């Protein structure tokens, strides 16, 4: 069959909402886009553990510490689901890790911002996980089967992440003057970077919309961002706090919130590696990998020994 026919069959499947599975024929660019997107997503889960890990030893109570540990452990799990989804496309795990550590692979820029106070852990759960959930709920319907299934699993775990974050802020918002100020300060610092998570405005992209056609993506950046703003603008009322945007206003005609302009210079700077913590994050990942080397070696040696012992027994 000529390639065009394969491509037509492939597109028909997509149009009919039939999932693509690892062994099915797929255009090379579809494979590549999925590998890049899934591995970036995996890296984001893994690097995303770092800003929060910063507060595990300083959580204000044993309860908060246990919750934060469980949350960070979930993020590790999310990274692993996603790495194995990317592997089904023929991308070796080792190569993905190499690409992350060499700086070649990207991850979500949001994790290049520092966590300065305990309230930041609340703001991350509420805003950062909240923004991620918008994207991930959409991706439960993505066209590549293993990616979609990983997303279903992840979304089940995510709602606790957002709720625990909101609850942290809720407690602070009902606390002392200093606690209230800390809560507002964290919201001020995380709001705009959270909005940037959705990527450039739709009008910035003039090129072909292949990801939509292939149903890898099913909503545009602006659609997702608007959904997020509408959700948060309502939820913040419960906190009695303010979003740092004078232009935030309900638009009765659009039935959506209007909001101000994102600082796109900052966005591109952080993407390009010049955010507050880009260097620190990569160094932390590399160091963790280097320090784990003896563990990996010991495990491999132990497995070999056990296999030999079993062979002896059998002989």
């Amino acid at each position, binding site marked *: 069959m000529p390639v065009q026919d394969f491509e037509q069959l492939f597109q028909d499947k997509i149009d009919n909402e039939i999932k693509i599975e690892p*062994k099915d024929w797929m255009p090379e660019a579809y494979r590549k886009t999925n590998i890049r*997107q899934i591995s970036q997503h995996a890296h*984001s889960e893994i690097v995303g553990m770092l800003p929060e890990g910063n507060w595990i030893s300083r959580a204000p109570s044993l309860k908060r510490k246990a919750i934060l540990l469980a949350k960070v452990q979930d993020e590790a799990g999310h990274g*692993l689901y996603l790495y*194995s989804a990317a592997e089904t496309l023929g991308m070796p795990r080792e190569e993905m890790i190499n690409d992350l550590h060499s700086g070649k692979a990207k991850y979500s820029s949001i994790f290049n911002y520092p966590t300065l106070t305990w309230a930041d852990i609340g703001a991350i759960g509420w805003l950062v996980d909240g923004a991620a959930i918008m994207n991930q709920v959409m991706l439960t319907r993505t066209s590549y089967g293993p990616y979609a299934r990983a997303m279903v699993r992840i979304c089940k775990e995510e709602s606790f992440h957002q709720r625990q974050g909101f609850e942290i802020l809720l407690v602070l918002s009902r606390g002392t003057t200093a606690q209230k100020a800390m809560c507002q300060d964290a919201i001020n610092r995380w709001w705009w970077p959270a909005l940037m998570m959705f990527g450039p405005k739709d009008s910035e992209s003039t*090129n072909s919309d292949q*990801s939509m056609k292939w149903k890898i993506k099913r909503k545009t950046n602006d659609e997702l961002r608007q959904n997020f703003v509408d959700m948060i603008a309502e939820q913040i009322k419960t906190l009695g706090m303010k979003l740092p945007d004078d232009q935030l206003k309900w638009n009765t005609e659009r039935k959506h919130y209007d909001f101000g302009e994102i600082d796109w210079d900052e966005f591109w700077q952080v993407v390009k590696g010049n955010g507050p913590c880009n260097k620190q994050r990569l160094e932390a990942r590399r160091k963790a*990998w280097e320090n784990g*080397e003896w563990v990996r070696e010991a*495990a491999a040696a132990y497995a070999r020994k056990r296999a030999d012992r079993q062979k002896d027994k059998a002989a």
Partner: protein
Amino acid sequence: MNFIRKFYYGDIPDQKGSDEIKDAKNPLAGGRGAGHDWPLWEVFIRSKQGLDHKHAGSLHAADSQMAIENARDVYTRRMEGVSIWVVESKYIHASSPDEAASLYEPANDKVYRHPTFYDLPDEVNHM
């Protein structure tokens, strides 16, 4: 064709990425100790006594015992399982999607295998 230039949430295009961080001492340059000698395992989980094991995903581990322990941490953090199977991925043989049509063809024209094929009078119940 002009593929995938668009910058979507969670998919940063290569050409817009950071300048690669040059690091001569990249510890992974040789791929050493990268876990490449740890095989891939497929994980199957029985969610509840009385149900079948179902494929949950895959992971890397040095041996079967480590695969089971990792599977517990990765796939059953919320009591999702009462039993775990792991099998090295290389031992799984799969039917080819390209041959699906001919492979399942024999079942195609045997409607009489389904109960709805049989027309019985209304007064016959419970059948």
